[in-house]
């Protein structure tokens, strides 16, 4: 199998597991619903306040849901020693990693796309005009979370207290992603001109490129037992 085929097979395997078990996306979805509920208790919002706060709330919910998905990505492989076989299989580790990133990206973006209408309904948002742009922002920011998150998921799967360590390691490193995602989402939701928040999208692209390369290069050291 060549490099890209490995990526496809690993991603396809995860997708198939998910389609059959529906564990990750459903747990992410209901967790995020609870987050929405808690936020609606915490703030009493009118239309104006909702527009100011919604981007932050959205990304808090997305980040924590994402962490649930990312944690499961490798801990699910512990059953039947699948992780061992992944590590000893004669495929480039980088390709296995990229396959996992692709699967995680797909799961989290799917969850986000399902969740976003919920936010629109529960927080009485206006119908958004820039939907493709918003999707692009979701995609780029989730890619940033997935690249670092998948690396740390592979790292924390071997250690004690992994459910705690994944967010502790991931969230400080993901600060640029969170800031850029919130600012860009707020700009897009409020219908501001693109020039005002264009640099945040550029930052997301830079983060994605840098950490895809760095993680791809370092993952050999993690997935090597």
């Amino acid at each position, binding site marked *: 199998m060549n490099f890209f085929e490995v990526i496809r097979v690993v991603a396809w395997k995860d997708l198939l597991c998910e389609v059959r078990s529906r564990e990750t996306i459903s747990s992410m979805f209901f967790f995020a619903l609870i987050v929405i509920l808690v936020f609606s208790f915490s703030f009493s919002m009118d239309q104006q306040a909702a527009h100011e706060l919604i981007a932050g709330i959205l990304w808090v919910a997305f980040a924590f849901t994402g962490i649930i998905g990312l944690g499961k990505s490798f801990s699910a492989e512990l059953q039947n020693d699948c992780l061992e076989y992944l590590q000893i299989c004669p495929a480039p580790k980088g390709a296995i990693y990229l396959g996992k990133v692709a699967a995680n990206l797909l799961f989290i973006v799917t969850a986000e796309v399902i969740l976003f209408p919920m936010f629109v309904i529960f927080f009485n948002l206006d119908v958004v005009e820039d939907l493709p742009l918003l999707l692009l922002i979701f995609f780029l920011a989730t890619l940033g979370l997935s690249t670092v998150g998948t690396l740390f998921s592979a790292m924390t799967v071997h250690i004690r207290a992994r459910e705690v360590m994944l967010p502790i*390691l991931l969230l400080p490193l993901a600060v640029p992603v969170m800031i850029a995602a919130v600012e860009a989402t707020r700009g897009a939701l409020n219908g501001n001109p693109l020039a005002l928040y264009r640099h945040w999208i550029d930052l997301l692209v830079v983060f994605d490129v840098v950490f895809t390369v760095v993680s791809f290069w370092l993952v050999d050291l993690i997935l090597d037992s």
Partner: protein
Amino acid sequence: MLNAIIRKLQLYKGWIGAAGGLCLGVGLYFGLVASPPDYYQGEVVRIMYVHVPLAHTSLLGYTVLFLGSCWYLWTRDPVVDNLCHAAAGLSTFFTAVALITGSIWAKPTWNTWWTWDARLVSFAVLFLILVGYLMLRTFIDDPEREARYAAVLAIVGFVDLPIVHFSVEWWRTLHQPLSISMRGVSISREILTPLVLMGIGFSLLFAYMLIVRTQLLYLSSLLRAKKGRLLSQVHLAKVQP
């Protein structure tokens, strides 16, 4: 090679510590007594002579951690890993003290203990990354795996820090611009002298603490490896010059 350098440095650690102490002493004298109070901030400005060098030293510590991690991945020498562990612990300490002194300085000048300013957020993120690094190390049982994962985390964090800095810089900034930058020095000699002295002093202090701590971690790893058996004279002779 680095292993040999570390062993060599231990011979001179007393001198390094003494030189650091001397710089700090003279620097404190110039800073607290000889230099004039600031035109706007008055006597409050004197905390700068501790705060700014501490902040620089914590960045120095992270740089040492990054270089040491690269070196560890290259050579897989356990002593280099001990050096990284020591650098991370010290850098965490220096970052925490820099944050605390900064907070004390911010209260009279900005009239707030904490504000979401770019450099404060960068340093808080640096602190969190370092704490995460130290926590990760405690949660792994196998020493080799611990060293490898920690090195990877240190490298990823080092790559992340400039991006964090730029993102929060764009987000908001309140800090006074750097006084010593590529464009030259914008402060007077009376203030610069103690500042530079304190900077050198803290760096030397860091070097001294780093050597001692590396030695300590190396010895405790030896003890762990030899658990249940007597420490052999060979290992003790290797460590103690």
